[in-house]
């Protein structure tokens, strides 16, 4: 066997993850063993999506699919070894990080997301837990089990995607059409969470998520998002005014003006007006001081 499975590190609905190593190189790897026998419809959709999209992407900020093999009727995805993730780092209060560190992480995340988007791939489940760290501090966008191709305009999609707290308003409204802008919203929420070190929009359930989101950022109106009021659930909403600049400054004390612009650009209600990945990468936030930290020097282990 070219790969060894040494330690079980996780078990999900459709896979078990092991740590191991590659025989020929000694390289540390993770093996995601897809439980195929459990599915009556043959290969599971999540597994298919993961295989399909990871095959297409080679980028320093997207998790690397090293190999795939079959053993005992199971499908095994050999992935690069990524020891920790952003959720763990945010929660570990013994780890201190600076605005420059956050900038480095945002830059890497957006490069990975942009690489997905220019390959016409929507991730649809961006959250701190799916942004993994390599041993040298690089962020890797991971878990493509919900990914899909960027749809053509006539395709009808399910809005039941993305983990609740990171769900864009158009998804909360149950939109049947959406774009790569949903991923950017998630990145915006993650950015806020990095600055606050607590989840920014922690809705208790789907209804509460709308309440929490609009209370924090203002209820969208037809003026800035034409026809938003024609969504079925719109009428039941409490109308909150958007936060003033001062309110935002108070909430995000350490954020510079450019950082706030950057965040508001990603957390724009109207998906058509929201920043694209390219616009994010070109924003002034990345051009002003401090420069992003060198990823390998950021301490992500307590």
């Amino acid at each position, binding site marked *: 066997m070219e790969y060894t499975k040494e330690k079980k590190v996780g078990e999900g609905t459709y896979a078990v993850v092991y740590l191991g190593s590659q025989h020929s190189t000694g390289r540390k790897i993770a093996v995601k063993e897809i439980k195929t026998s459990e599915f009556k419809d043959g290969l599971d959709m999540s597994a298919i999506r993961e295989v*399909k999209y990871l095959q297409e992407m*080679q980028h320093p900020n997207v998790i690397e699919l090293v190999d795939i093999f079959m053993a005992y009727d199971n499908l095994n995805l050999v992935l690069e070894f990524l020891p920790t993730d952003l959720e763990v780092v945010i929660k570990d209060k013994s780890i201190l990080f600076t605005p420059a560190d956050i900038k480095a992480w945002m830059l890497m995340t957006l*490069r990975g997301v942009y690489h997905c*988007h*220019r390959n016409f791939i929507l991730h649809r489940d961006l959250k701190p837990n799916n942004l993994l760290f390599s041993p040298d501090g690089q962020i890797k966008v991971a878990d493509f089990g919900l990914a899909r191709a960027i749809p053509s305009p006539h395709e009808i999609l399910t809005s039941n995607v993305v983990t609740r707290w990171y769900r864009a308003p158009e998804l909360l409204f149950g939109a049947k059409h959406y774009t790569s802008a949903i991923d950017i919203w998630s990145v915006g929420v993650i950015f806020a969470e990095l600055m606050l070190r607590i989840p920014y929009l922690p809705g208790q359930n789907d209804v509460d998520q709308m309440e929490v989101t609009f209370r924090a950022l203002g209820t969208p109106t037809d003026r800035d998002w034409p026809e938003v009021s024609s969504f079925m659930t719109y009428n039941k909403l409490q109308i909150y005014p958007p936060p003033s600049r001062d309110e935002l400054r108070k909430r995000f004390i350490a954020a510079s003006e450019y950082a706030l612009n950057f965040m508001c650009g990603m957390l724009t209600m109207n998906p058509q007006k929201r920043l694209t990945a390219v616009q994010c990468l070109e924003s002034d936030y990345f051009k002003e001081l401090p420069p992003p930290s060198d990823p390998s020097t950021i301490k992500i282990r307590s």
Partner: protein
Amino acid sequence: MTDIQTDEKGASNPATSSAAEKEKETPSTSPAEKNKPPNYKRISDDDIYRHSSQYRMWSYTREQLQEKRIDTNARAVAYIEENLLKFREAHDLAEEEMKVLEAKAIPLTMEEELNLVNFYAKKVQVIAQHLNLPTEVVATSISFFRRFFLENSVMQIDPKSIVHTTIFLACKSENYFISVDSFAQKAKSNRESILKFEFKLLESLKFSLLNHHPYKPLHGFFLDIQNILYGKVDLNYMGQIYDRCKKRISGALLSDVVYFYTPPQITLAALLIEDEALVTRYLEMKFPNVEGIQEPEAKNMTKEAQNDTSKTEKDKKQNTKDEKSSIDAVKLLAVIRECKDLIEEPNPLSTEDAKRIAAKNYYCQNPSSLVQKLKRKMNEDTSTAEKRQKI
């Protein structure tokens, strides 16, 4: 791969690339241009395509493809011949029987295999269409099926047994989920036979599932032609061209063009079949030849374009700037013509021929049935002879 990995900030997004974005590239509007390193190059859509698994794993030169087929066939032939030898050794065969085996238990040639695969690929298309699956799912089914038989021989896996498997996996891969039970019901099959070779299929596809088909480029060209030749093409007419090209593309997916050409090239070839003048005109305006190797007629066309509205003028300039280094209409047309010729090559296998090859395929794998058939025939002969004697 390094080019994609090292680029970051400035690369153009193919999904949203628009006139507005192109504007940024012209020096007058972009001060950032000056700060770029001298070897700065944007990642193009072509670069992205070159990283796709379709290009990396499933695009070949004619020689490579031929070699691959010869190889797959040779491996199967060796296997079949070994089995035939074993069969001969294990059975005490009469001279007559040996003769029949020598005449009929012969492995398929590479050409026969290819013909049979293409015959069944057409079946895949018909069945998938019959199941009312979206165009892209049908296309992916065909692609999976044909790729499977680049890796496997029809002498080892019966193409019939994989038809539903490929369609079912294509459904899932294209995000068009149908449960296996309802699929089986619709396709008049059963779940065991649909799922039996699913792993084998996935493995043979080298776990490469994302297909780029020419239908998206068709839509793109359909819009761009109307933009570039604004006011010179009739909308209704373009609609007809679109539908006819779609059919052409569906036909082309059954041929080897998919291994030799990129989806946009195949699309342009289909367009060329439908209206050569339109495509030539479009390409010459889109990619004006700056070196001036054009034919006189084409030159006039460009001049005409220069006198056009300022909008077209601006577009043209941008195009010249963007593409002059990489795309040359004359060269491009030559490639597309080659592709067009291949699309138009007839694929003449009749059902009778297919049946003949299928029978040959069966006998080379089941020599015992040939022997039994012979025995039956001889018995019949003797019994008729006996009957005759009695009379």
